[in-house]
């Protein structure tokens, strides 16, 4: 009985996912009509670097050479060449420099991959940090070395001040004032500590 319900759930979820994917694909493909020559020229031209004006595409450059390049793209497309063939002709003359998008292979794969890797790395660091700041569970099961003798997990100073409120309330109701020494060092403590540290350094070992 329960197995049947779970199977039905899986089927429904799969169907929903498939429908969503189909919708997304249709949305990305755009309307189903033959593109005009102008649109095809623009598509090719916007992927080519204008040779006489370093960082403009052939579609955006007002220069005469870019104008002539657009005319040649239009002529070649009208003659029945594919967009890929037209691009390849420019690459044959100018090299891959002329492509505004680096090809996705070889060393040029790097600019395609590195941003994704950095993003993933950054997300990993962020998740790790957030878990560290907010996880009171660390006090119980975390690294013993971080748990001080009083059972407190040391927090960085910047986490202390405004700090996210601990998820669960304090483990035990605070003991009445005065039973524990107040937080922070009193003058007396500081003096004792300094002497202790000094004597540590002086003791011949």
């Amino acid at each position: 009985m329960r197995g049947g319900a779970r199977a039905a759930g899986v089927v429904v979820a799969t169907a929903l996912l498939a429908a969503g994917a189909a919708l997304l694909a249709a949305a990305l493909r755009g309307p189903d009509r033959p593109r005009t020559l102008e649109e095809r020229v623009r598509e090719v031209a916007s992927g080519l670097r204008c040779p006489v004006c370093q960082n403009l595409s052939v579609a955006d450059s007002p220069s005469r050479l870019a104008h002539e390049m657009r005319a040649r793209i239009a002529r070649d497309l009208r003659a029945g060449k594919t967009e890929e063939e037209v691009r390849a002709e420019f690459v044959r003359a100018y090299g891959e420099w002329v492509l505004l998008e680096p090809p996705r292979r070889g060393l040029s794969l790097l600019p395609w991959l590195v941003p994704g890797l950095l993003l993933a790395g950054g997300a990993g660091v962020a998740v790790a940090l957030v878990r560290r700041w907010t996880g009171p569970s660390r006090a119980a099961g975390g690294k013993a070395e971080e748990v001080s003798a009083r059972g407190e997990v040391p927090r960085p100073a910047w986490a202390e001040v405004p700090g996210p409120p601990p998820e669960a309330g304090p483990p035990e109701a605070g003991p009445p004032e005065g039973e524990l020494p107040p937080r922070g060092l009193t003058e007396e403590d500081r003096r004792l500590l300094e002497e202790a540290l000094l004597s540590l350094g002086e003791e011949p070992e």
Partner: protein
Amino acid sequence: MKQAAVERHPSALAPEAALRARRRRGLAVVGVVAGGLALVAWLLSFGLSRDPQLLRSPLLGRPAPEFALPTLQGDGVVRLSDLRGRVVVLNFWASWCADCRLEHPHLLAAWDRYRERGVVFLGISFEDRRSDALAYLRELGGDWPHLWDPGSSTALAYGVYGVPETFFIGPDGRVAYKQVGPVDYELLTSQIARLLGEVEG
């Protein structure tokens, strides 16, 4: 005394090992970040220090793109394939181009030296008005054929970025060398001599 202080504040002195571990971890993070930044800086210094226009032309060693262009004066058509077996110096220029004026005397001198030895000089006018180009030639001379390139189709086939650019085509019809920017007499004569040596040798 030391005992007393430690007893009252155990957390003050206790986890020295934890501190050290923390410092080590901090150092590792700083190291990784610094390494990443250094890598980015290195890649940038590599990429930004190169002139993107001086990339090796993909035409080097390849058959020179064919063309059949009318002369500027309109008194004939020059077809590259008719020149097979000869050394061709193909110079793209324009009347509005300052570096072209700079290199023109060098072209004249090299032309004088090699015109009797079967070397062909060809000028191709780039993005120019025909009247301006003809006036430029009247002023500076240069009686090798100068060609008119409608629609810049030949310039595009040769991957011309700007003027002046000069292609040296060997007797086998292949592009042997490309100069972006002005040529001088030494470059012209050394490249021509190299290609002529291939003819004779």
